[in-house]
């Protein structure tokens, strides 16, 4: 590998990027109530304390429900959009795609307050489903980013061959296209699941009385005594999301390889 100084800089940069994640387990396993240096001793008591908090379990269950439903809905919408944008030319394409991709750059608080105003205006009471409405909105652009590269690398002649052999558009989609983009779909499900599980602002505004995991974590920051448990929880979450992301990356790469494309980059 060339570029000595660049490499030194890159490693320094990675240390900056990973600093919080390296510190997190230190405090999760530290035997002290105060989150500060020096560390006082090894302990797993925050992890066992974590298992004895019913409020946390409820929040986790809410978050998992929201994340599963949102990732399925967002990926479904993403499949339609990616198929449309890679396969067809149609009027207003740029405008419609721009609107669908807008949540990628729009501050989440704007999405949250605008949905809140409309839902309250319509008399819809806030629940886990209102959070799902918002999460689908912000996950869809990410699913499209992943799925369009899967759809893009499809060889259109395979599809034409299926039509020539007498398959209907629906059966062609099911028999030819779907299996080829399946790795992309799995990758997109995993990414949306991760985004939804971690999303705070929209859930904070739209969850009503049923907190999600991030809303619960945020509320616990106010009580210094419950922070060590949050550090333990954070350690578990970080491990979980690294596993999920590694799976997502594996499927994304396999999908591109399957369709005969070459791997050009990351998730975004």
């Amino acid at each position, binding site marked *: 590998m060339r570029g000595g100084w660049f490499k030194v800089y890159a490693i320094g940069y990675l240390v900056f990027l990973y600093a*919080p994640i390296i510190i*997190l387990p230190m405090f999760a396993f530290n035997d002290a109530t105060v989150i500060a240096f020096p560390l006082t001793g090894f302990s797993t008591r925050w992890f066992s304390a974590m298992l004895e908090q019913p409020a946390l379990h409820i929040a986790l269950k809410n978050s998992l429900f929201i994340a599963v439903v949102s990732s399925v809905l967002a990926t479904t919408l993403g499949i339609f959009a990616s198929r449309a944008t890679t396969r*067809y030319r149609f009027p207003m394409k740029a405008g419609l795609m721009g609107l669908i991709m807008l949540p990628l750059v729009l501050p989440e608080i704007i999405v949250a307050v605008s949905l809140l105003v409309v839902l309250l205006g319509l008399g819809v009471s806030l629940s886990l489903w209102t959070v799902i409405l918002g999460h689908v909105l912000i996950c*869809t652009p990410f699913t499209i980013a992943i799925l369009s590269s899967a759809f893009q690398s499809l060889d259109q002649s395979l599809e034409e061959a299926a039509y020539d052999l007498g398959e209907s558009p629906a059966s062609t989609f099911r028999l030819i296209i779907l299996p080829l983009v399946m790795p992309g779909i799995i990758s997109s499900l995993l990414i949306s699941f991760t985004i939804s599980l971690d999303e705070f602002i929209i859930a904070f505004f739209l969850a009503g009385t049923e907190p999600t995991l*991030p809303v619960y974590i945020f509320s616990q920051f106010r009580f210094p005594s419950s922070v060590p448990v949050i550090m333990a929880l954070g350690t578990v979450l970080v491990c979980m999301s690294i596993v999920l*992301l590694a799976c997502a990356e594996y499927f994304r790469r396999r999908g591109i390889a399957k369709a005969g494309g070459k791997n050009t*980059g990351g998730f975004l």
Partner: protein
Amino acid sequence: MMNAESRWAKLRRTEAANGLLMISPPAIYAILMLAAPLGTILLYSFLTDGYLEIIRDFTMANYVEAWTNELYRSVMVRSLGVSMTVTLVTVLLAFPIAYFVSFHVDPSKKALWLFLITIPFWTSYLIRVFLWKVILGYNGVVNSGLLGLGIIDEPLTFILYNVNSVVITLAHAYAPFAILPIFVALEKIDRSYLEAGQDLGESRFMTFIRVTLPLTMPGVIASVLIVFIPTIGDYVTPQLVGGPEGRMVANLIQLQYLKLDNYPLGSAIAVSAMGIVTLVSLIFIGLNRRYLKGPK
């Protein structure tokens, strides 16, 4: 054969219809859940706040309040300053990384590097922000480290609960967003251009300035926008590490909506913030127009 032929003709003829049909589920969702709500807050920002309900009186009062009240104006100016600083810092720090991964990393290892860079971005945002508080705090990592090394005599206090800590934390949070677009732009550069530059007698540095940099500008512009626009609306970071003097516009919006129940004023602040961001972004794109027109 005839049958297949005519079927293809039919499919082609209705390509636009098929495309619209295919895009309709996500498009209708985005119109109902995004465009309509955005339209609604725009409308609300011109209405009057009653105590328990919104009064349907058209007024500019909310905008007058949002733009003339000293408190709101100072928060707005600060948010804009913070996002611009964060954008500058993030993009400047990100460029060498993107350059390193694109030009100096073995092609088989590029995906691994990108994966390493993106992982921190996907791990619990709230906990990451909270940990910056631990790193920058009075008894934090930075202070105990510097004290231990004897570089300082007493803990630094200017690195937490002010604008500095907000900038550091946001620069950390948005790093991958800045790296990826620049990386993609660098990857697209035909390496033979660079050889041509050096064959024609330019130094490596001048080749970088005159060939690489202009060709990378679309990526740089994309990363500037993708960092600048969302950071101005960040709520968690100013709330947790900003302290009273680090509050930003999202905290103000949250206050108006959830605490004071003043939807019209909250909407006017939100619309104003988005208006300013859009304007700054358009000016920025306008200034860099010549880089975006390149051959497709």
